[in-house]
């Protein structure tokens, strides 16, 4: 750990003084992970122990440094904290900080330095940089976050003293203890081999599955998270030959009018609409997706594959609109979800669906098409900015981000990907959307020398013609996959997005860095058991994401923590929590959630499954929630329209269910069984509304329900006074489920 203190050499004396004079001691440190950091204050109030960096001056702090160092003139201030449980090597990028002014506005502060105070091993000094848009606002409340846990807030004067927001409810002075505390113990990662707490189990299943069910909570709580992960990594999917849950589908004739004529005298049960639905719409794929989400055992593979789909996008909202074609792509995602990133990238690149979607199959030496080359760089592998290992953008001397590639690079990559096409037709009139694409031969691949990224070059091939051209296309493909998969950006770029999809939209850079290190080498993590010094091992990446200290714990208090449940997760999570069944409750749901098209329960929320608008997916990982300065990717599709539809869809599921329907035909209906939920267990508790609310608090909010939320829901339940006790209890339970499931508190997975 660094021992230099750019801030204040006189700190020792001042802290000694505090330590001698002050009497209030803090509670003994808790051995559990995710302790709350404690920021030190004065003896009798919440005003921070704080100094301006370098100048050592006390508050009020000027906006521009008294003794500026370097070009950045902004003031830095030193604050002091206790009870930090850091992983070995963890430093400033594990922390986030913010201040709030009297008007309620919140300003993020950059944490620039963290180090022990000399002779006070249990006290840590932290240097934060004042935000650029912070003015002379007077008192602010300052907070520090570590591993998703928020500190107490201490008062700091910016510009002038006074004014400022009221102290937080229950805030007390947190002076240094009279006896200097011993060094904080380093955080020892929990092996998660033993039983888990109920609250963290619920949180874990929100991250690792399509949503906790009462039976899975009990089971996973008992077996522990490590055993659950090992089970999930080992579970065979239903289509074992393809390593996927998606069954193989028949490849229809390209011409739908031939495949599905108006009538077929040979088949008495023939129906054109059924034929069209099953071969030319996403209906069969959607049913598989939702049925597996509701009932499948390999939940983690499904969540990871869906996340990967949103990174390596093929959309059926395009020419790739046949379910059999999309199935090959979806099978590749499933098959490699816990495998090698390089293999995944390679297989997806050569999937006919991708070849069609981003036009690589059309690209030849004389008619190059740069669509795939550009998107494989920007979206599927390295992104547009050169990244630090912790996922933050590197910056040049002027503070500008540094592009990872130029148009010239795109041109070179375009040449590498020339000369590929579909394999031989499956049959007459059936384009081969099944097998990996193959080189065209002839002179279609550009056989000249090429320069890829980071100075890597490919020499010209021996001959531009025929078999040599085919071999050249293949060797170039191997080279370009190596060049991309080994680029240092891939680890942080892919890891951060997977964290955002599974755990939280705003991971600390330190969290991204820990996961990216595992991406770079699967032995470089907190859980190396069974590792093989492999790069891009997604199984270990997923494990690192889910067992990280920033992911785990019963509760997270960092105000930036969590993610908006995207529609697929919101709808399936709700159903899984309440025992989803067929409409008549006699059997299972048919997995058809609403209409057949983009108007279903997730499509109406702007997430039509596997049919995003563009290659940029349903929403972008960089989407910032307006007015917050924090990321909230799924907020990109939470509009004034979809917010009400979220509530309305839940209303339908609770009060109506999705009825079976018999179109197009009774023999092959769209919705043979329909969908409903079963909340009879909650209805049985409804004699005492508080019991229902407690059960929902545990199941949906892992025990974080605000007391007034509880009161409001119970009041609404008690307003229902039907004389018939069965009716009364049913209505009360439904009201409670509606209010919790439609709340913003449940919208956000925290």
């Amino acid at each position, binding site marked *: 750990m660094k021992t230099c203190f750019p801030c204040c050499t006189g700190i020792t004396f001042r802290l000694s003084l505090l330590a001698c004079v002050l009497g209030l001691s803090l509670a003994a440190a808790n051995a559990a992970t995710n302790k709350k950091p404690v920021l030190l204050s004065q003896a009798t109030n919440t005003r921070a122990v704080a100094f301006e960096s370098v100048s050592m001056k006390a508050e009020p702090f000027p906006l521009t440094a008294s003794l500026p160092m370097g070009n950045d003139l902004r003031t830095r201030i030193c604050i002091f904290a206790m009870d930090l449980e850091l992983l070995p090597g963890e430093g400033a990028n594990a922390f986030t900080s913010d201040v709030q002014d009297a008007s309620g506005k919140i300003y993020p502060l950059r944490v620039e330095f963290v180090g022990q105070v000399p002779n006070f091993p249990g006290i840590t000094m932290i240097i934060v940089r004042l935000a650029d848009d912070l003015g002379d606002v007077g008192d602010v409340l300052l907070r520090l976050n570590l591993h998703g846990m928020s500190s107490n807030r201490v008062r700091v004067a910016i510009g002038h003293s006074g004014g400022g927001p009221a102290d937080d409810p229950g805030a007390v002075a947190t002076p240094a203890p009279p006896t200097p505390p011993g060094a904080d113990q380093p955080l020892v990662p929990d092996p998660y081999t033993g039983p888990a707490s109920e609250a963290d189990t619920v949180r874990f299943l929100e991250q690792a599955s399509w949503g906790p069910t009462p039976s899975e909570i009990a089971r996973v709580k008992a077996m522990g998270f490590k055993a659950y992960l090992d089970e999930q990594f080992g579970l065979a999917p239903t289509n074992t030959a393809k390593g996927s849950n998606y069954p193989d589908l028949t490849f229809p004739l390209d011409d739908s009018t031939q495949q599905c004529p108006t009538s077929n005298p040979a088949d008495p049960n023939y129906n054109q609409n059924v034929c069209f639905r099953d071969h030319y719409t996403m209906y069969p794929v959607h049913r598989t997706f939702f049925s597996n989400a509701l009932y499948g055992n390999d939940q983690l593979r499904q969540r990871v594959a869906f996340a990967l789909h949103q990174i390596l996008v093929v959309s059926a909202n395009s020419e790739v609109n046949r379910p059999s074609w999309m199935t090959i792509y979806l099978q590749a995602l499933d098959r490699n979800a816990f495998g090698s990133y390089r293999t995944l990238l390679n297989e997806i690149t050569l999937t006919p669906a991708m070849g069609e979607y981003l036009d690589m199959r059309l690209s030849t030496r004389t008619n190059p*098409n740069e*669509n795939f080359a550009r998107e494989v760089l920007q979206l599927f592998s390295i992104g547009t900015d050169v990244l630090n290992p912790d996922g933050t953008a590197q910056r040049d001397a002027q503070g500008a981000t540094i592009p990872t590639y130029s148009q010239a690079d795109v041109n070179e990559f375009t040449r590498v990907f020339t000369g590929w096409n579909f394999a031989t037709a499956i049959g007459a009139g059936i384009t081969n959307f099944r097998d990996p694409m193959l080189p065209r031969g002839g002179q279609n691949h550009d056989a000249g020398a090429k320069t890829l990224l980071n100075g890597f070059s490919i020499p010209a091939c021996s001959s531009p013609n025929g078999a040599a051209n085919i071999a050249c296309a293949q060797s170039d493909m191997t080279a370009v996959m190596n060049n991309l998969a080994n680029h240092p950006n891939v680890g942080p770029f892919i890891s951060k997005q997977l964290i955002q999809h599974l755990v939280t939209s705003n991971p600390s850079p330190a969290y991204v860095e820990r996961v990216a290190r595992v991406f770079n080498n699967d032995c470089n993590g907190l859980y190396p058991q069974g590792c093989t010094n492999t790069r891009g091992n997604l199984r270990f990446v997923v494990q690192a994401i889910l067992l990280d200290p920033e992911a785990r714990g019963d509760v997270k208090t960092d105000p930036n923590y969590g993610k908006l449940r995207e529609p697929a997760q919101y709808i399936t999570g709700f159903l899984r929590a309440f025992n989803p069944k067929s409409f008549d409750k006699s059997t299972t749901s048919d997995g058809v959630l609403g209409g057949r098209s983009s108007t279903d329960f997730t499509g109406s929320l702007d997430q039509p499954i596997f049919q995003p608008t563009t290659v940029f997916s349903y929403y972008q990982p960089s989407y910032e929630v307006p*007015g917050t300065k924090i990321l909230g990717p799924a907020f990109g599709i939470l*509009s004034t329209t979809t917010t009400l539809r979220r509530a309305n869809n839940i209303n*339908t599921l609770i009060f109506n269910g999705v009825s079976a329907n018999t179109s197009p035909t009774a023999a092959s209906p769209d919705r043979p069984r329909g969908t409903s939920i079963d909340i009879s267990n909650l209805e049985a508790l409804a004699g005492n509304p508080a019991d229902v609310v407690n059960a929902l608090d545990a199941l949906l909010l892992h025990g974080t329900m605000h007391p007034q939320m509880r009161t409001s829901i119970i009041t609404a339940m008690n307003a229902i006074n039907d004389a018939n006790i069965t009716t009364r209890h049913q209505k009360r339970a439904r009201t409670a489920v509606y209010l919790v499931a439609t709340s913003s*508190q449940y919208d*956000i997975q925290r």
Partner: protein
Amino acid sequence: MAITRRDFLRSSACAFGSMALASSIDTFGVVHALTPQAASDYKALVCVFLNGGNDGNNMFVSLDQYNGPAGSTVEGYSNVRAASGLAIAQASLLPVSPVSGGSYGFHPNMPEMQNLFNQGKLAVLCNNGPLVEPLTRTTYQNGAGKKPMQLFSHSDQIGLFQTAIANNVSQTGWAGRLADRTLGLNGAATFPSNVSIAGINLFLTGVDTRQLAVADSNTTLANVLQLNMSGSASEQASRLVAFNDLRTLDNNFKLVKAASDTRSSSIQTDNALSSVNPTLATVFPNTSIGRQLKQVALLIKACTDPAAGINMKRQIFFTQIGGFDHHSAEINGQINLLTQVSQAISAFYAATVELGIQDKVTTFTMSDFGRTFQPAGTGVNAVGTDHAWGNHHLIVGGAVLGHTLYGTYPILRLGGPDDTDGGTNPRGRWIPTTSVEQYAATLATWYGLSTADLPAVFPLINRFSTANLGFLA
């Protein structure tokens, strides 16, 4: 920081406690005195975003450059585009003779645009795109000039068009910042000024301005934001009390608060729209963009109908049509999409005439980028184009000084003076001769943005020779 009227409205809308409301009253008195006078007239900007990057080279063709030098493969429209099957036959282009000179042809499926052009209600802005500062081929290639960030990338270029800030990632769009600065023009009206019919977008997001997003005209305005609750009236009423109460809790968690704020905005707007029922005689095409623009026309009618009590004076709308990323199959793709664009914009203009506000509504196109002049692929069913830069845009309305071109039409030569590309295989990516900021500033000035506020909305505008391209009266 001065507290704006919007701050007051937002805080009072959020503050269910009477204490908080009472303490805001004093502030309101002060703020009211500072609020600019509401506008006396109505004006609206309507963006039609052609998502994916429309190939303007085939939407609006220079007939003077149709045939380049005989034998050339790098210069002239047909010389470069005909062999691959991408050139549109000269006879089928819809000819126009702009006041600014020369002869040009609209895409054959845009007769409505040709018609509006000839009526003087449509102008074409040629070779426009994001710029940090004016650039030439020389300063582009030798690095002396500053380039926009992430040229040729969809997401970034959409961002640059929508934010009009070409040298940085901005979290606000130019329409959002414009609405922030012109809030006072709407007087006491509380309806959201910025409305999307195509989902959430950066364009309408301001520092303070939040967009309303509603569905297209398949849903009536009265139902467009409806919260459906089951049960008896009394059950609904008690459930709604709790439903609303929960949004006041846990606001210290920023994402929870953001979700609550979106829903609160939706419910407030629902109340404003619940009783309106505007109708139009104008027939719109039953396409997505047609229904979106119809919904805009219906909203304008409702928001300006004194009987409805919404009383808006300034509004900005966002509509979108996707599918323009024609790396392949461009010929049939553009036939389909430009037909929809032309018919929908034409119907929308007719609706503004029906409402008697055609001089008060300006419709304009934006798109990710133009496309390479040199084709990608070959064969009329396969050929397409790749990502490029400068592009042509349409501006329609009664206030438009039409029947003419603005900006400079590029010289159609691969590796020519307007092409970014050097080397042995230049693709024809035009360096814009006017910037997105100038395009947007012209629209914003007409909308009511003061000259003094121009740099606040368009931070790079002073780097360009003029902030007003002159296409609006």
